């Protein structure tokens, strides 16, 4: 196993598909939304992604991205309006093919590329956020010591 500094190096330099063949790692830890990007940013006009997802039960973790308003802002109404806009249907439906993330709004329709190639894992690993919060640093430290040092 190779642990890199971040997603970019892993996907673009070492992953066989992402590096256009010069990397030597056929498996990469990435996002379930990466295969649609393979199609959108393909160079050979392909209609199907060059990579597929492996979603073993309990082997995928759900990543949630946040938007928030900072305490002490001088423009609370404007900030509220911006958050409302980000949560509106047009924005949420546009986001998948811009940021390669799933919409947070339940009614938002997914693009076809997502429904075909980025199926939502049925059985992701789940953990109480409070538990993660209590142990985050300790676990990262333990993982770093076990894997990297």
């Amino acid at each position, binding site marked *: 196993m190779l642990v890199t500094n971040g997603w970019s190096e892993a996907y673009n330099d070492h992953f066989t598909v992402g*590096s256009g063949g010069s990397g030597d790692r056929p498996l990469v830890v990435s996002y379930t939304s990466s295969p649609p*990007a*393979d199609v959108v*940013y393909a160079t050979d006009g392909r209609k199907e992604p060059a990579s597929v997802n492996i979603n073993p039960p309990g082997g995928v973790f759900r990543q949630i991205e946040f938007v928030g308003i900072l305490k002490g802002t001088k423009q609370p109404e404007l900030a509220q309006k911006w958050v409302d806009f980000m949560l509106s249907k047009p924005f949420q439906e546009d986001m998948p093919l811009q940021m*390669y993330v799933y919409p947070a709004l339940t009614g938002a329709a997914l693009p076809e590329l997502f429904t075909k190639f980025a199926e939502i894992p049925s059985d992701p690993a789940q953990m109480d956020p409070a538990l993660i919060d209590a142990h985050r640093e300790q676990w990262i430290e333990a993982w770093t010591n076990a894997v990297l040092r």
Partner: protein
Amino acid sequence: MQRLFVTLRYGLYALPLLFLGLFYLYPLVSILRLSLLPTGRLELAGIGQMVVQPYFWKVIWFTSWQAAVSTVLTLICGLPLAYLFARVQFPGKAFLRALTTIPFVMPTVVVAAAFTTLVGDKGVLNQWLQTSLHLDEPPLHLLQTIWIILLAHTFYNVSVIVRTVGGFWANLNPHLSEAAAILGANPRRLFFEVTLPLLLPSITAASLLVFLFCFTSFGVVLILGGLRFATLEVEVYRQAVSLFNLPLAAFLSLVQMGLTFVVMVIYTRLQARTSLPLDMRSEQSAARPLSSKRAKLAAALTLLVALALLLTPLLALMWRSFTLGTDGLTLRYYQELAINRRQSAFFVMPLLAVRNSLLFAVATMLLSLLLGISSAYLLARPRTWLTALLDPIFLLPLGTSAVTLGFGYIIALGSWRTALWLTPVAHTLIASPFVVRTFLPALRGLDPRLREAAGVLGASPPRTWWEVDVPMLFRAVLVGAIFAFTVSLGEFGATLLVSRPDLPTMPIIIYQALSRPGLLNNGQALAMSTILMVVSALALIGIERFRFGDIGEF
């Protein structure tokens, strides 16, 4: 007139001090105070735990020894090249010298990709060795080892030696060595007893810059060396960004600054002692064509090896930008740079990124020259406690953790954070130490008798400056200008924090392309890197052609 000149001089001395105070000390102190004294009281518990861990000492040891070894390797590769560029006449010199500087501006992410293509387990070199030696396994495992870190540090820093030492060497009066040769010194003795002592101030200055670069190395260690290696800078980043442990990050950056300060105090002492007034000559009068066949062969071989080391990663990168994911050649990735595929409101034409980068680089160059040269004149004054203290302080930004300073900018600079001029200001903070270090040895080497003679003959101080200092020091200014320009073109970490989304630079475009999956994005990053290379090479050749009146390369 006289009074005005004196006032102007002190005004210029004050300028770099004001600049450092406002854009370095103020944000730095703000973040350190916020990190270490969040409640107004010093919290030492976490720091106490860190210091007793063997890991902490291991990081300090690793940071120091890899920087020292990298510096020695860079000197070994750089000095022969510096000699060739300074002393020997050969065709295509300006062009080749510009090529040696390109690695300096390349972002680590794309260089890492180029190294993977070349020396990775499935890379060109391993495949060639495997087929020619009939091996089942790739023989070289360089990636994620210390070797690739040392190799990459050498790759990045050779130009520092070539430029600083070479620039100084070119102006040394050849008559001294010729006299020694006539008196019977063999070439070896001539080098060690005449040339080397004369070059020493500029060699130590260049080595110090290389050492500091490797000491605070971040991208090379993280991306090429992998996560098993950690310099202090990497550990600061991990503590601050991954764990959000600001007190510990602040403590580690203080340790890093402290160690840098010690190194610089030792260096500035040495530097002030080894400087001698020198008899400087123009490059044309000092450079010689090679006469013997053997010398020609040796020179050609040195150039070939050094350029192979420096250029193959760049050529690999360029090649990939035309061939990635296809069997033939393609211009697809270059065309794609101009297409707003995501219909993004933040889309910026890549040609505009070229323009932005060049404008920022020119602004950085001018500002760094102004501040760097004023600083150097201040430091070259008769030694007092003030100059002794300021000398290492002017270098401190190079030894400061970029992550920490970046956080400092965010909390301390308020609405200035989005100001257009903040990008060149941040670049200048990193670039002006280069100007100081390349200019100071030349300034100290300026024979005071020349100025005295001008004064005795009736020249006013401004006229003496204009007709003695300026022509004699012009070459050192040029070297400093080139460094400031290239630092700005390639700078990424600080730019990411202070640049505005509507005015991205070339490295920012490369970074953004690499942060999305898909070959088209990967290819765009490579195409933009190739454009960055070509633009830098052209700009460097342009700056080198700049002449001061009819004095030329002096």
